[in-house]
């Protein structure tokens, strides 16, 4: 297959510099083939979120380019590219006072004529699809007409996943989808995301800070530290040593190399867990 055709998402040495001079991302280049489940790991402030939000233009890189399905992201192409990218958010970003059904249906708004959407006239096939997705993410019929605020965190994120798949996007971005969930719910939600993406052949770019979850669910792990890619490879290759490396100075605020050395002397086996607590 043509390599350009197979590329779902490509970052071409994207950089992000904030006005105060901090570099959130420093010339990151990355290419995601279709169908991959790629997890971006890193401590908070490593630039995961910025990278993800560049993929659908929520953040504009200060230099470099983003290509989605071979088309360069720009203000001209933004409105046609965005509906092809689903997004799942850390805080679920549901309209809490609206019903689950409305929240899920709102994921299909860009695909409707604006006047239909304004009047809430969702065509029957879309309604069917919403029901199908709500059941696919493990919710029941009785949840449909409940307000989103009445659901638990895990259930809310399920609604978020259902909403993200409404337009059958070939690419799904998940920005810390489980950061505000407990471990059990985190596991379930990630498993669900992975199954749904597999079934629909969607590429997933997911940011996480839990090393275990990344190793369990990812095809590929990209680790960021201070805006730079420090690891990029299959999940199996991501071991405790690498984990130590990315988190060693990513969390601590001092720049001195001494702490990195000091960290290296820690007991190696339990590092991922220790890291989780620190993060």
């Amino acid at each position, binding site marked *: 297959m043509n390599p350009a055709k197979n590329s779902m998402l490509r970052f071409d040495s994207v950089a992000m510099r904030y006005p105060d001079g*901090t570099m959130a991302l420093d010339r990151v280049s990355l290419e995601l083939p279709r169908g991959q489940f790629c997890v971006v790991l890193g401590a908070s*402030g490593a630039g995961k979120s910025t990278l993800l939000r560049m993929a*659908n233009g929520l953040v504009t890189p200060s230099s470099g380019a983003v290509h989605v399905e071979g088309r360069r992201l720009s203000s001209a192409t933004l409105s046609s590219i*965005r509906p092809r990218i689903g997004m799942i958010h850390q805080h679920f*970003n*549901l*309209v809490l006072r609206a019903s689950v059904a409305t929240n899920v249906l709102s994921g299909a708004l860009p695909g409707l004529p*604006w006047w239909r959407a304004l009047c809430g006239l969702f065509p029957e096939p879309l309604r069917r699809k919403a029901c199908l997705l709500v059941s696919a993410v493990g919710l029941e019929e009785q949840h449909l007409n409940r307000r989103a605020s009445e659901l638990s965190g895990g259930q809310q994120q399920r609604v978020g996943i259902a909403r993200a798949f409404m337009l059958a996007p070939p690419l799904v971005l998940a920005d810390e989808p489980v950061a505000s969930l407990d471990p059990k719910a985190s596991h379930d939600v990630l498993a669900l995301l992975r199954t749904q993406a597999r079934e629909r052949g969607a590429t997933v770019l997911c940011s996480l800070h839990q090393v275990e979850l990344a190793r369990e669910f990812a095809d590929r792990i990209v680790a960021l530290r*201070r805006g730079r890619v420090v690891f990029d490879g299959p999940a199996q290759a991501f071991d405790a040593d690498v984990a130590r490396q990315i988190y060693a100075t990513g969390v601590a*605020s001092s720049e001195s190399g001494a702490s990195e050395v000091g960290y290296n002397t820690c007991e190696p086996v339990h590092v991922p867990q220790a890291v989780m607590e620190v993060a």
Partner: protein
Amino acid sequence: MTDVVASAPPAARPHSAWRIQRSFGVRQRVIVLMVLLLLVVTGKRVEIDHMVTLTSDGLLAAVGLRDSSQVSAGLASVARQLFPVQLSERTEVARIENFDRDHLPWLSHLEVGTVHEQRLNPDTLQMEDHVTQREVLVEPLGYLWHVAAKMIETLEIALWATLLAVLLSLPLAWLSARNYTPHRVCYTVARALVSLLRAVPELVSALFLVLAYGFGPVAGVLALALHGAGFLGKFYAEDIETADPRPQEALRAIGTNQLLVMRYAVLPQVMPQFIAYTLYVLDRNVRMATVVGLVGAGGIGQELKGRYDMYNYAHVGTILIAIFLTVFVLDQLAARWRRRHA
């Protein structure tokens, strides 16, 4: 960003050296003194002392510690004139066009009254006592019906004024919400317009609108709508600005246009407040519709003004009670609706 290097913490001091700030420092005391001074000066200018003397006189008179007081006497005379309120309506049959004796209005009956009249006899140039028999149509609740009809007209004015205010204020709110306005100039102009609309009192704009549109409900509707639009525009805009941005971002991330983001991510969030504000404006419009009627802008206010000018205080009493009951009932309904939609 976590990359910010924390500066070294200052050396810890023993707790005996710690200080908790006092609640009232010198600054606060000076401010309190200034406020008191301001109240004394302004109170003198608006004759608060006079009010206190008169009111206490009135209270003392009410409990019998004083023979008379200006306030209690005034209130008593008002009460005597307002009550009993006027419910019936008496019309001379001779003045009714096409009077049909066989089909009297509902609940009404005919009375024959003797009317004594002093008339000047042109021949003798003497005042003579004339006695005439006149037939009068008595409708026991006639005036009440009349007031009810006027009250309904007032409610209609308030309803339409509120509707127009909402329609006018929605685009204004969009333009004057910082996160939705298309341009800074639009924002400034819309904000200024909203302030201007709110700054002009209904009664004043009604005065001018009566000149433009003539006597009648149109002027009232427009006057109330313009003021209401200023009020709603400001509050709608503030709610739009403070709505949770996260659902809005979720919709924007998949390429939803601004209009639909507003409809699906903002509107559901702000609906309870929108309803509360709109109900408040409706409530206010009902009260203000009676006031703008005073300058000829239709409704029960016009009736009130007419009766007041003709010294028909019993009629005025009926009107006042009708206004009170309407506002009270509306208040209860609004409270119930707000509870359901909160």
